[in-house]
């Protein structure tokens, strides 16, 4: 009798991933010289209305600049509170 293939349990945890990503982006890229950081107004604009043609560079910058990432998270949290 053919054995039914048992599915391997997936140990991927969404909340763990979110927590890790948050900590990683907030701490791993200090960028103390603030090289290439966009002004606050640009972060605010992207948080309010993201447009790829305009904000692609900022979006990429957030993936390797922890201070900007933390600021962007603050702006997003502020907008969420207002809404």
């Amino acid at each position, binding site marked *: 009798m053919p054995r039914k293939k048992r599915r391997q349990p997936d140990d991927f945890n969404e909340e763990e*991933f979110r927590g890790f*990503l948050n*900590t990683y982006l907030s701490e791993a890229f200090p960028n103390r010289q603030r090289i290439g950081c966009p002004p606050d107004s640009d972060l605010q604009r992207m948080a309010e209305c993201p447009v790829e043609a305009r*904000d692609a560079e900022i979006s990429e910058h957030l993936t390797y600049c922890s201070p900007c990432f933390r600021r962007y998270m603050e702006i997003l949290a502020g907008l969420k509170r207002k809404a």
Partner: protein
Amino acid sequence: MTTDDSTNSLRLNSVDRHGRHIDPAALAAAEAVFQRALELAINLGIDYAVVANMLEEVAAEASLQLTWRAGVCEAEPIRNLPGYVFRAFERDINRLKRKEIALLDDDTPRYTLAQRWVDPSRQLEMKVLSDECLARFDFEVGDICSRWMAGYSWDEIGKIHGISGHAAELRFWNAVRRMRKQLAKRKKSLLRTTRTDPNEELKPAMRTDAQKEETSA
């Protein structure tokens, strides 16, 4: 931001990051307290660039105060401008620190330092997946990811991108799943190329013994 002159003193810009002009008197006062402000900020674990930005902002606000007080006859002038700037800076930096602490204590799960090193291989897997996602996510999925991390609901995220909450959720998780699949494939092929016969290193006689043991078990 800041500039250094030949005497290596700490200098600020005459315009803050919001484009507001700083009065020369307020700028001089801010530069006079820069060193003290920096020491305070370093003790709180705050970045040099943030201090400069914040001092420029405080100086710009002090400039507005100076202009207003000059225009109103009854208003008392600011007697100790450097002291005024420093107190305003202290207030702002404490507010920033409180916000940072609030952000760390919010509902979003975060790792404590102790937890982070509990399972290094798992952490490495997470790091590899994170790097892969950050490098390969397109603009839309990247933005969905940021808002998901900030605690937005899928409906809120979908609304911003003009799609349903369910579609936003699917787009994000499908992208993550794709990354995980690719990583799993790479891991498998890496294992295949590095795996060797466990008895290969043994002498022929010993190999037979070991194989015998395996079959009897």
